[in-house]
């Protein structure tokens, strides 16, 4: 008879967390199995790169495991994992020092008015083609429920800048739909 592992049972997340904190790797695997899809989805949308997304997903769970004792339960495990993932991605982004798109810059305007004629309405692809900062803001806000103040704090930008980047992202994506409707 095959032994049913802890992570394959219907154990509650809180119980898994408790057991994982006590060093039970099967319990931590339970948490992994329950949340890997969300974490990978977030990483994939943030990076627009499946390989990088896998690396950040792994890094997220490794860091979560190392910090299990520090998790106080003020937020849900999902939110906590999302924050770790975002931090991991942003740390790497800061290391690469990307240019923050200034909402007053000509590039911002150009992107807003970009000729998207001929592009397929593939939202995933379109999100992936957003400027990195706008993509980060959009993914966090539109897909994973972060508030603008939370995004601003995570990205180290002003709330107004976060809103502007979100607006930019929406404008670009909306333009794709407009063009598609016109075709």
């Amino acid at each position: 008879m095959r032994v049913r592992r802890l992570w394959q049972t219907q154990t509650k997340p809180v119980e898994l967390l408790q057991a994982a904190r006590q060093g039970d790797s099967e319990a931590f695997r339970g948490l992994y199995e329950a949340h890997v899809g969300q974490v990978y989805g977030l990483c994939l949308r943030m990076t627009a790169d499946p390989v990088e997304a896998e690396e950040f997903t792994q890094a997220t769970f490794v860091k979560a495991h190392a910090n299990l004792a520090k998790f106080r339960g003020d937020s849900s495990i999902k939110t906590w994992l999302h924050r770790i993932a975002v931090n991991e991605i942003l740390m790497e982004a800061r290391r690469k020092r990307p240019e923050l798109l200034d909402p007053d810059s000509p590039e911002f305007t150009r992107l807003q008015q970009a000729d998207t004629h001929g592009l397929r309405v593939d939202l995933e692809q379109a999100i992936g083609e957003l400027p990195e900062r706008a993509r980060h803001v959009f993914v966090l806000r539109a897909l994973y429920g972060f508030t603008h103040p939370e995004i601003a704090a995570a990205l180290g930008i002003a709330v107004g800048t976060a809103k502007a980047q979100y607006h930019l992202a929406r404008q670009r994506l909306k333009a794709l739909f407009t063009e598609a409707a016109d075709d």
Partner: protein
Amino acid sequence: MTDAEQRLDQAIEGLPRSVRPGRDLWPEIEARIMPPVRGSGYWALAAGWLLTAVGIGLLGWRLSMAPVEVSPWPDGALAAEFNLDATRLELRNELDRAVALLSPADRAALVAELDGLRAASEAVLAALREAPADALLQELAASNARRELAVMRQVTQLSHEISQRT
């Protein structure tokens, strides 16, 4: 809200938040979060010790016997080449130094394990005394002699690694 905005919102709503990665990431995560297995080197040390004990015991037994038909090396040359008594003493000292570096709990576990292994080794030797003409066992003795050299190197290396870790 324009039609395009509505369609965008619907499309956003329709995107799955959860996406399974294309491959299982758990094995790599597990490898990174699991601490190194404590004592694995110690058990290798114990296994090495057992092999060496058997090898030395067999060689000692082989050398103490009257010459037999199948003899891989001249007995005197074999004893001189491996200098068995000195090797055994050196190996014991090396092992003792490594064991001294262990935590009390690990040391107790290792000593208990070694006692069990040595008892098993003696039982094997006792069985061999019952069948001293067994050519296969003689071949095993010769093989163990070669293995002995490799094990001695392993014991020395493990001892060195343990010293470095501590």
